[in-house]
């Protein structure tokens, strides 16, 4: 059977001849394999899988738990019935037999296989020496591999692409003419934006005890990774039968070249790579290790990295921002499943997760009553799919729309939102010592009148009003919008601390304001437009170290000491009298030398990356695009060091200083700032609002493959554009003003 373009084969692997015969035009089908780990699941060490379609290709996965279900999507290029098979390789070196894939299916594909990328030069490195290796048109290598005198001598084969390119596949081929050295049994892939490094690991492509692929090609997915150079790094050469050590490859090819998601005329091409690879790592978590082979679940040290989202309500609005613009696909389906399944009580209280009303069975987070409708509104307005709103909760049978409306009503009626200020009920949430805390920042006893919760409420009113208007409920939309100024006024009345020149975190039930220099509260307040110009300037002056607040423990440049984000708070938690923190039954010790002492805990002097998303938005709103660009440049500088793969431990062996990796999928909001910050793309009732704010150094910026209302768009904002021009799904518009792309594809100026 032949799968005419465009098609995709889902589940197993196809079979077929050799790679040399891969005509790009015939590679439009994709084979998807879902594999239940079967009895290999009894292995307690990690494994990786190798898929063999019988078409001359092997596709290895990243490592993961043996009992988890692994899957693959493989460009399928050959005719005939797919007869995929798989084998598992354990980290200690055992290899399973080949076994047939249980479930395989073919799906339509929308894109042909990427073309081969030209390679400017190749070279081999070992022991500090480098030597050129000639490559042929089909990637064949003119060498006999590397010979080394000792085991565990690192060596590499490096490809210089001549410029930053998007790479989808790295294809390795053994050398049948040099079977003595053999295909490397231990290798990993690294990338760089300069041929001289620094080299970053592609953490999903790290293989130990790789079986000899013989005549097969090894296709390693890189999923659009932007790189100037790639290298196959071999930390341990093969032991040769005749003595000594070595390895070889017969050929190496790269497929790719697609336009990256984010494009701009950056002064340095490294910036292009930084934005896109930040998104690859923390947005879609493409080349990460997912120990359950599922990017919606966290992965433990030392393999922790980016993940897509978390299914608990606290993350759903952030998940909608990250995923709704990606169009149809597994991410959207999974997000919608979580939104549909998140319980909402009959009175409208939103649960924290499908199995718990309380976050971690500890306390109710009423901020979820703002997060849920925000997520629903954003997702619908991006996709315009009425069926989404009508999706029923599998337990209650209520539709998503009904639940979102109930959630908003709960804010207004039960939490006092109509007064302009949500007030959290109950002893657990009263914000005093002994209470439980009420939001994401659950180390602190946010409660009663909570700035975090009320800021989200202000934002939820905006987004839900857009949804109601889109559905024709203009009266309700107006009602919600009319409340926003009141919320802003009450927010400022309650939380602004004139003495410190910033917003406090909460006002407890005794009327006491708690201000520990919460950067996450203040950046969010600015991002949501809750400050006036004067107050915003004071907040930014404090954050930028231009003014010190009396009593603060972190001032000046120390506030951004970590580079990628400000410290969570600038005043130590132990300054509270008594401290207003939740020690989780003594698990946290905030005194000097303790495991949660200042600077050693993410919520007490440490930093969480997502805060930078709001920081960038606040700066753009009040200080301009160049100020935001300056902050992003600092983030980029940190990213270039190690791609922010940072999870250091504190003095008690607890890796809770930074919130970047593992259970922090919200890290992906930071590169999303390219979409809703620089390009100013935000869904509204009438369509997609586009209000670009380009930094001075960037004459134009483009987002590609942005899905809106069932169509995929490429949108460019350019300083030299005089008026918006649409060419099919490609839009070019001026970098100033605000524009509206309607669901039926028309573009016009927008107020």
């Amino acid at each position, binding site marked *: 059977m032949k799968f005419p373009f465009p098609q995709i084969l889902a589940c197993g692997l196809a079979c077929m001849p050799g790679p040399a015969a891969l005509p790009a035009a015939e590679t439009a089908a994709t084979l998807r394999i879902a594999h239940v780990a079967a009895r290999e699941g009894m292995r307690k060490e990690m494994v990786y899988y190798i898929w063999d379609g019988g078409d001359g290709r092997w596709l290895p996965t990243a490592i993961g738990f043996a009992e988890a279900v692994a899957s693959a999507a493989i460009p399928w290029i050959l005719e005939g019935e797919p007869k995929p098979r798989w084998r598992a390789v354990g980290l200690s070196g055992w290899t399973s037999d080949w076994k047939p894939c249980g479930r395989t299916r073919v799906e339509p594909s929308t894109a042909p296989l990427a073309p081969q990328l030209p390679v400017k030069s190749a070279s081999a490195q070992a022991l500090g020496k480098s030597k050129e290796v000639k490559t042929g048109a089909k990637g064949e290598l003119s060498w006999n591999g590397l010979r080394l005198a000792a085991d565990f001598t690192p060596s590499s084969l490096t490809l210089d692409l001549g410029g930053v390119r998007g790479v989808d596949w790295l294809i390795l081929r053994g050398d049948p003419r040099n079977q003595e050295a053999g295909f490397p049994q231990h290798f990993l892939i690294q990338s760089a934006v300069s041929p001289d490094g620094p080299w970053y690991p592609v953490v999903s492509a790290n293989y130990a005890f790789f079986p000899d692929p013989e005549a097969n090609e090894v296709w390693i997915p890189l999923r659009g990774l932007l790189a100037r150079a790639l290298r196959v790094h071999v930390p341990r050469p093969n032991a040769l039968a005749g003595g000594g050590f070595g390895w070889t490859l017969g050929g190496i090819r790269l497929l790719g070249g697609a336009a990256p998601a984010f494009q701009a005329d950056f002064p340095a091409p490294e910036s292009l790579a930084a934005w896109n690879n930040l998104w690859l790592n923390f947005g879609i978590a493409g080349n990460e290790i997912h120990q359950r082979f599922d990017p919606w679940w966290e992965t433990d040290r030392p393999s922790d990295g980016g993940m897509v989202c978390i299914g608990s309500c606290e993350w759903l609005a952030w998940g909608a921002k990250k995923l709704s613009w990606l169009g149809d696909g597994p991410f959207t389906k999974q997000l919608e499943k979580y939104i549909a399944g998140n319980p909402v009580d009959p009175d409208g209280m939103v649960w924290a997760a499908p199995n718990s009303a309380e976050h971690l069975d500890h306390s109710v987070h009423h901020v979820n009553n703002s997060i849920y409708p925000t997520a629903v509104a954003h997702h619908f307005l991006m996709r315009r799919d009425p069926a989404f709103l009508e999706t029923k909760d599998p337990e209650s049978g209520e539709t998503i729309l009904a639940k979102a409306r109930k959630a908003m009503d709960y804010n207004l009626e039960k939490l006092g939102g109509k007064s302009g200020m949500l007030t959290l009920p109950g002893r657990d949430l009263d914000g005093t010592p002994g209470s439980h805390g009420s939001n994401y920042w659950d180390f602190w006893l946010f409660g009663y009148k909570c700035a975090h919760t009320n800021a989200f409420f202000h934002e939820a009113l905006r987004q839900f009003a857009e949804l109601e208007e889109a559905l024709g409920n203009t009266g309700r939309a107006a009602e919600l919008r009319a409340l926003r100024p009141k919320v802003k006024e009450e927010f400022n009345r309650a939380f602004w601390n004139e003495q410190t020149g910033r917003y406090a975190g909460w006002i407890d039930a005794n009327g006491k304001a708690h201000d520990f220099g919460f950067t996450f509260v203040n950046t969010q307040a600015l991002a949501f437009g809750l400050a006036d110009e004067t107050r915003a300037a004071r907040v930014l002056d404090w954050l930028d170290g231009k003014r010190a607040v009396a009593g603060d423990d972190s001032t000046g440049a120390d506030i951004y000491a970590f580079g990628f984000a400000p410290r969570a708070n600038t005043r130590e938690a132990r300054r509270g009298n008594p401290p207003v923190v939740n020690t989780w039954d003594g698990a946290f010790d905030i005194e000097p030398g303790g495991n949660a002492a200042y600077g050693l805990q993410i919520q007490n002097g440490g930093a969480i990356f997502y805060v930078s998303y709001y920081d960038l938005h606040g700066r753009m709103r009040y200080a301009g695009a160049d100020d935001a660009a300056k902050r992003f440049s600092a983030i980029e500088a940190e990213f270039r060091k190690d791609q922010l793969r940072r999870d250091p*431990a504190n003095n008690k062996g607890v890796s809770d200083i930074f919130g970047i990796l593992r259970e922090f999928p919200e890290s992906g909001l930071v590169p999303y700032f390219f979409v809703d910050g620089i390009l100013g793309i935000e869904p509204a009732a009438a369509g997609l609002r586009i209000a670009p704010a380009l930094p001075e150094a960037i004459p134009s910026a483009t987002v590609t493959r942005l899905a809106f209302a069932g169509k995929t768009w490429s949108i460019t904002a350019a300083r030299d554009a005089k008026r918006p021009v649409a060419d099919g799904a490609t839009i070019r518009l001026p970098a100033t003003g605000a524009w509206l792309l309607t669901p039926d594809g028309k573009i016009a100026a927008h107020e």
Partner: protein
Amino acid sequence: MNRFYQKFALAAVLAAPPLHAQIAYRETFPEHRNPAQYIRIAAAGEKWEILKDDDGARFMRVTMLPLENRPRALVVWDLAPLQFNRLSVRVRVNGSGAAPVFLSLSASDRFGSSYTFKPFGKADGAPRKPLPAGGAWATYSARTPDDLASIFERGKEVSPYVHGRGEAVTTWENVDFKNIGFKTLHFQIDVLKNSVLMGKPFSVDFKLLELANDRPAPPAAPLPH
């Protein structure tokens, strides 16, 4: 085709592994890995750093400051869950004078079981010995199950020894030593209660951690659970 043979002459830097063992993990603190991603220290461990030895090999130096309320340092290696039955590591103490410094090891798997190994220098029925003084490298090696002192499965001891007495009370027949996904290694460095090192900083170096399995490797067939 213009071909050439590429060869790099090399001095042997490390001894080859025993022929009867297959190394699954060798820690050389390579530049392509960030140790902060997989090393943690705690208690009397003040800081760690990666340095180069005279032979160019990289090693980790842990500076510790034992105090009465925290006499031990803990050095934790986080592993992607991995099967091994042999372990060796080279250890060196610096700046301790003649005061004894002891090393012990426990490990845990990803299901919450912990495995305590016999400490450095411990022979059956004899007291443990300290690490050599004077800045000399020593090798600590252990294997499962021979060098295990105790095993706890979810807090319950299942070992044949009552910890501290060395007395066999049961068997480990239910523990499948060919199928343990070791997730963390916990090296513990401690000094005597009345040690002159209390309150004085000194350092302990770790080099060339190797985790290996006997040959042949565990069978490819699924395990009978």
